[in-house]
């Protein structure tokens, strides 16, 4: 099956092997129906950055599905497939899940092998799961998890049977989440976040409290530093990772009289604007004499963020935030303003920096589009606590009153 990563450079590329996650799915009997659209090499938050098509949001065709794995989120939301994979470097599974009203799961760094995943920023990349229910997402995670000798960062820990712990609503106690300590991250419900998103997330927290949780506010003062640190690390690592696309061994080639012009022209023809800009920013940040000012400082910020999450998760079982500061916005709205688009990643990038697992669930609607636009909230857990997140999520989605997250174009059929 061709694999383009949304790039013109890989237009007719057929990989010689399946990624480990895909191989495991096939071995479990899954039927692979196709590949989905994305922002080129995962660089974007709208899927408008694909070299091929712009993907629409099934809830409102004039809006973006989010990104970068927006095609996967839209396909699951429109019920074109049961589940889908995506990659999450800074929120590329969770933010589109939120925009499209589906479940998005970012596993712990190391839970799933990245062998065969087109690399963007290797210190952050994980393969994540989309489903129209928590149960489906959990089954998918179980199928793709585990150590792989071809990815040294993949963990040898046992894989829990995620599906076996799900309890159907008829068998739930009246306070099924009694004793669970929930920390609501204060910095994610402040100025700059859409007020309707804030009230949806607060309602979700109230619902968790009715299920028996104790919710308190926690502060992560370093939260806002995660965004620039993330973009320094991601663009730096991408400038290195994408150096492999030189037009020599695979991909579209522009032949020249000299090797450097073959490289330069193949890359110029093959990459889109956002990819070029991120490679150039990364090249700048990694320039001789600048490493300490950018890349190293961003890595130090990563340590601070990791420690602040650890502390918050010592006192709480899970942390809660919105999945994105807004609901899905209009196609074209942020296309020419990189910083405005990057700002939309504030809720998710810190979790990648800390390497933690997070589950995004639809929790409500705001006005917009033909039938409202879904809002997602994010449950963040300690490393390798996917089992707990899925269990909580499964109870939440079964007990949330009066919410059906099926887009009108599907429901009306």
């Amino acid at each position, binding site marked *: 099956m061709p694999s383009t990563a949304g790039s013109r450079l890989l237009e007719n590329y*057929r990989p*010689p*092997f399946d990624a480990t996650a895909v191989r495991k799915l096939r071995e479990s009997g899954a039927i692979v129906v196709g590949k989905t659209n994305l922002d080129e090499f995962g660089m974007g938050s709208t899927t408008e950055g694909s070299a091929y098509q712009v993907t629409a949001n099934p809830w409102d065709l004039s809006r973006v599905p989010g990104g970068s794995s927006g095609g996967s989120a839209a396909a699951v939301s429109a019920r074109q497939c049961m589940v889908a994979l995506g990659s999450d470097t800074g929120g590329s599974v969770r933010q589109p899940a939120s925009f499209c009203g589906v479940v998005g799961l970012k596993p712990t*760094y*190391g839970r799933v092998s990245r062998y065969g995943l087109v690399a963007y920023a*290797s*210190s*952050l990349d994980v393969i994540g799961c989309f489903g129209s229910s928590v149960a489906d997402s959990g089954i998918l995670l179980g199928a793709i998890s585990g*150590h792989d000798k*071809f990815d040294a*960062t*993949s*963990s040898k820990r046992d894989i829990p049977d995620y599906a076996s712990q799900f309890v159907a609503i008829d068998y739930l106690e009246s306070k099924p989440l009694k004793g669970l300590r929930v920390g609501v991250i204060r910095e994610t419900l402040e100025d*700059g976040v859409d007020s309707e998103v804030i009230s949806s997330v607060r309602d979700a927290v109230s619902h968790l409290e009715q299920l028996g949780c104790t919710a308190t506010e926690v502060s992560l*003062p370093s939260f*806002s*530093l995660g965004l*620039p*640190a993330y973009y*320094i690390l991601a663009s730096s690592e991408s400038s290195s990772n994408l150096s492999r696309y030189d037009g*020599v*061994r*695979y*991909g579209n*080639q522009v*032949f*020249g*009289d*000299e*090797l450097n*012009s*073959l*490289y*330069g022209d193949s*890359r*110029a023809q093959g990459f889109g604007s956002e990819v*070029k800009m991120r490679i*150039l*920013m990364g*090249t*700048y940040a990694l*320039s001789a*004499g600048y490493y300490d*000012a*950018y890349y190293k400082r*961003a890595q*130090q*910020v*990563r340590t601070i963020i*990791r420690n602040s999450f650890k502390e918050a998760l010592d006192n709480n079982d899970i942390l809660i935030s919105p999945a994105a*500061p*807004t609901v899905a916005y209009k196609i074209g709205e*942020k296309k020419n303003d*990189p*910083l*405005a688009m*990057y*700002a939309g990643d504030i809720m998710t990038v810190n979790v990648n*920096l800390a*390497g933690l697992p997070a589950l995004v669930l639809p929790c409500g609607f705001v006005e917009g589009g033909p039938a409202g636009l879904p809002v997602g909230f994010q449950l963040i857990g300690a490393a390798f606590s996917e089992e707990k997140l899925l269990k909580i999520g499964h109870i939440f989605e079964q007990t949330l009153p009066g919410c059906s997250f099926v887009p009108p174009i599907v429901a009306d059929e």
Partner: protein
Amino acid sequence: MGSRAALLLRATPPLCALGKSASPKVLVQNKRFYAAKSSLQPPDVPRLAETARISLTPQEVEEFAPKIRQVVDWFGQLQAVDLQSVEPAIRADTEGDNLRNDVPEIFENRDAIIAAVPTYEDSYIKVPKVLNKE
């Protein structure tokens, strides 16, 4: 940029008090950071493109330069954070000792790898002359 988005990009004041010497005039976004940290030069887009082996058109240079500068300037806010004695983290924690034995293995689907090479002749990958300078 929408005002909401702008709010999210602002670091919290105590962590991000930029150079004291910044006069009102220097507060113009692009100049602010380089003025505070004079050893760092703003991005020179044509030079970066050459380093990254991407042949940009003059139109692209013109289009990208202000955007890259804006983002790099925004990166600059980390200069003001006190990070003394903080160890850098290369990645999230992973368990050590996961390396496989360094033993070569034969990849079965060799033909598919060769089929993907754009210019291939008689068991060689063909590229232009590498050593053509005096």
